[in-house]
């Protein structure tokens, strides 16, 4: 099974890289660009075929390593 994990900064945590990207987009002439937030995408292949077990295992991976839950939140997407 393949999974995709999205790791992003929590709301309220300053994201200077996102801000810089937003400024650059405005500088390129894109109008109406609001807040920009940057994050990470991590693709993981798993041998597990049970979706519930895979989700539980990925949650543990996020808590232990993939995200720093002091500043980041994560979303897990299981792919068919």
């Amino acid at each position, binding site marked *: 099974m393949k999974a995709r994990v999205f790791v992003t900064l929590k709301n309220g*945590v*300053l994201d*200077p*890289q996102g801000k810089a990207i937003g400024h650059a987009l405005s500088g390129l002439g894109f109008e109406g660009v609001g807040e920009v937030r940057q994050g990470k995408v991590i693709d993981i292949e798993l041998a597990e075929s049970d979706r519930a077990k895979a989700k539980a295992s990925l949650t543990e991976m996020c808590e232990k*390593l*993939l995200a*720093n839950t*002091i*500043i980041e939140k994560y979303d897990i997407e299981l792919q068919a």
Partner: protein
Amino acid sequence: MKSAVVVFPASNCDRDAAVALEQITGKKPHMVWHADSEIPKDVDLIVLPGGFSYGDYLRCGAMASLSRVMQDVIAKAQEGRLILGICNGFQVLTEAGLLPGALMRNANLKFVCRPVGLTVEETQNVFTRKYDNGQRVVFPVAHGDGNYFADNETLDRLEGEGRVVFRYAEGENPNGSSRNIAGILNEKRNVLGLMPHPERVCDPLLGGTDGRAMFESLIESVS
């Protein structure tokens, strides 16, 4: 005082720390490789040095915090052994859960490498007892991710418990750090993490000696 310096792949201030420790303590520190399982038992102080351990992959300090030697560092911290994390070492300590909060990308997105004025906020601890309370010192900083972040409750607690040991002087905050925090203690006060580099200002030839008192404090504390 017997000391050890942990060397991770891409540590780059391990030798600076070793030179300062040898000059001030008179004893060569043990250099302990990250894949070793144990730090020598007679060590009083463990230094996690500056650098870019594991290439800062995923997050600064994240990979190093899971390296084999860190299990022993965590055990020794719990026993009350003294741990000093400088720069990347501070990042490793927060990732390992030995210190609260996190170090984020500098607010201005720039790598800052220059001397910075600090105030010593707290001297009731083994690391800064030989400084004066409120003393102004200058240590170099050299980091891209030194922006200390913690929720307000944690920050209030750190301040209330006298665990903010160093702050950037007014107007000198180089990274956007919350409440100008440059260095903090753990609850038991045996683990200190700071972004600036005291080990680089221990010899007048290198432009200053403001960092010496930290190592002298530690020597006095363990004797």
